[in-house]
């Protein structure tokens, strides 16, 4: 698998710009997944993923093959997504990104043929989570998503976000604390349906 990447990188560095599509096609889904989880919506996720691939292309001559291309571009994507969320949070028109938009609610309803009452409850759970996530700062949101949902080590998160490891860890802890309190206030009890484990 790595050989395919390396061959494509050699071709790109040799001047064949279209060979970059091979790298994009192989890694876009993973990059899109992480940018989607950080930004919370498809449009921004797409924009951040594209920016990550563009940055990776421009830095390709500096790529040292210490890690795979996928890991490298993934780290760039974490940073691009955080920058985009920070930019959006400054825009007055941007109304804090939902974690999964209506996609999540639709998925619940269609996937398991649940009754309307259950679908309503699931939809409400999605909105509770969205509201809780809105209380996080972009840094907390990004660090939390990367550590908990993407299972990235704190060291990698810190390196990608350009902060010391302790700051990244504290951001994750603050995020969990805020989410816990937000859900308690919103819900009264912790009755949110848990998602299926990966």
């Amino acid at each position, binding site marked *: 698998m790595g050989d395919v990447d390396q061959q494509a990188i050699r071709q790109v560095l040799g001047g064949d710009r279209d060979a970059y599509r091979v790298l*994009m096609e192989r890694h*876009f889904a993973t990059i899109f997944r992480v940018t989607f*989880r950080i930004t919370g919506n498809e449009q921004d996720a797409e924009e951040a993923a594209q920016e990550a691939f563009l940055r990776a292309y*421009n830095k390709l*001559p500096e790529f040292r093959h210490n890690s795979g291309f996928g890991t490298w571009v993934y780290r760039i994507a974490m940073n691009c997504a955080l920058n985009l969320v920070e930019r959006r949070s*400054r825009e007055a028109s941007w109304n804090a990104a939902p974690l999964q938009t209506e996609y999540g609610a639709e998925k619940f309803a269609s996937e398991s043929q649940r009754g309307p009452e259950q679908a309503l409850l699931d939809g409400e759970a999605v909105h509770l989570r969205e509201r809780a996530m809105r*209380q996080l700062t972009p840094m907390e949101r990004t660090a939390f998503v990367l550590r908990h949902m993407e299972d990235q080590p704190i060291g990698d998160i810190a390196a990608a976000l350009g902060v010391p490891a302790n700051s990244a860890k504290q951001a994750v802890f603050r995020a969990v604390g805020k989410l816990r309190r937000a859900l308690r206030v919103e819900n009264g009890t912790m009755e*949110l349906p*848990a998602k299926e484990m990966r």
Partner: protein
Amino acid sequence: MKTVREEDLIAYHLGELSLWRRVQMRRRLERDPELAAESEEIAATLRAFCCDPAPVVSEATMDRSWQRVRGSLGVLDVPQKSGRGWMWATASVSAVAIVLLLAVVTRPWSPVGPVQPVKNASNATLSPASWSQRLLAELDHHKKSAEPYNHRPGPLTVAPVDAVAEDPALATHLDTAERVLTEVSHTEGPLQPETREQVHRLLLENAVYHQSAEQHGDMATAAVIDDLGRVLISLDAEPGAAEQKEHASNPDAFRLQMNLGGVLLDLRILHHNDTSHGVQ
């Protein structure tokens, strides 16, 4: 027995504790039903946010993204590697070694041993130990100056950080400032245009948050934001690349580095206070 904090429980559930501490925590949870209930609440929070599905990337999305990226792909400037590069590198290393050897050989001999750097001489003759002493002295000075202003013990406090806890925008501002300042402190040479733009934006917003913290009566945070403002002003007014060489030997640059370090430390303490504030 040591009190278990909320962040210890979170670290336990996220697998951030060492094996020994994990075992200890498990024992505590078995013995303490109240702690176990709190632990379960944290676990439920994490389960609620576990593995949200991401949309599948369609062929159309992939195509659209490729077309956008393809339009911006320039011709890469790949550095050419050649045998001559090695020759030049070897020649440079040899030249440096000869110069160092000459410097050692021609150094004036002193009967009382090696010459010690003078403490009050210019920056160029300060030993690393003196530099760190000056840095610590400057940080001490920085802390002391906040006290009369606050009538509270600065950011290093166990008191609730009201302004940060109540204003998510302020928390975001401090997060961004910490990230940008960390980047600046780890980068050499002139500021990148994007960083300069971020610094300028932070500076414009800073005054608003300073006022907001004062209105909340959180003078510790206000003092940190005030210091942050001074560092941002210095960075915003930093000379461009052309004047950078001259600037590097300027004592102001050294002072800016120290102030930047002090503000970064304060920001991290504020974050820590914010986290501690949330502990039940």
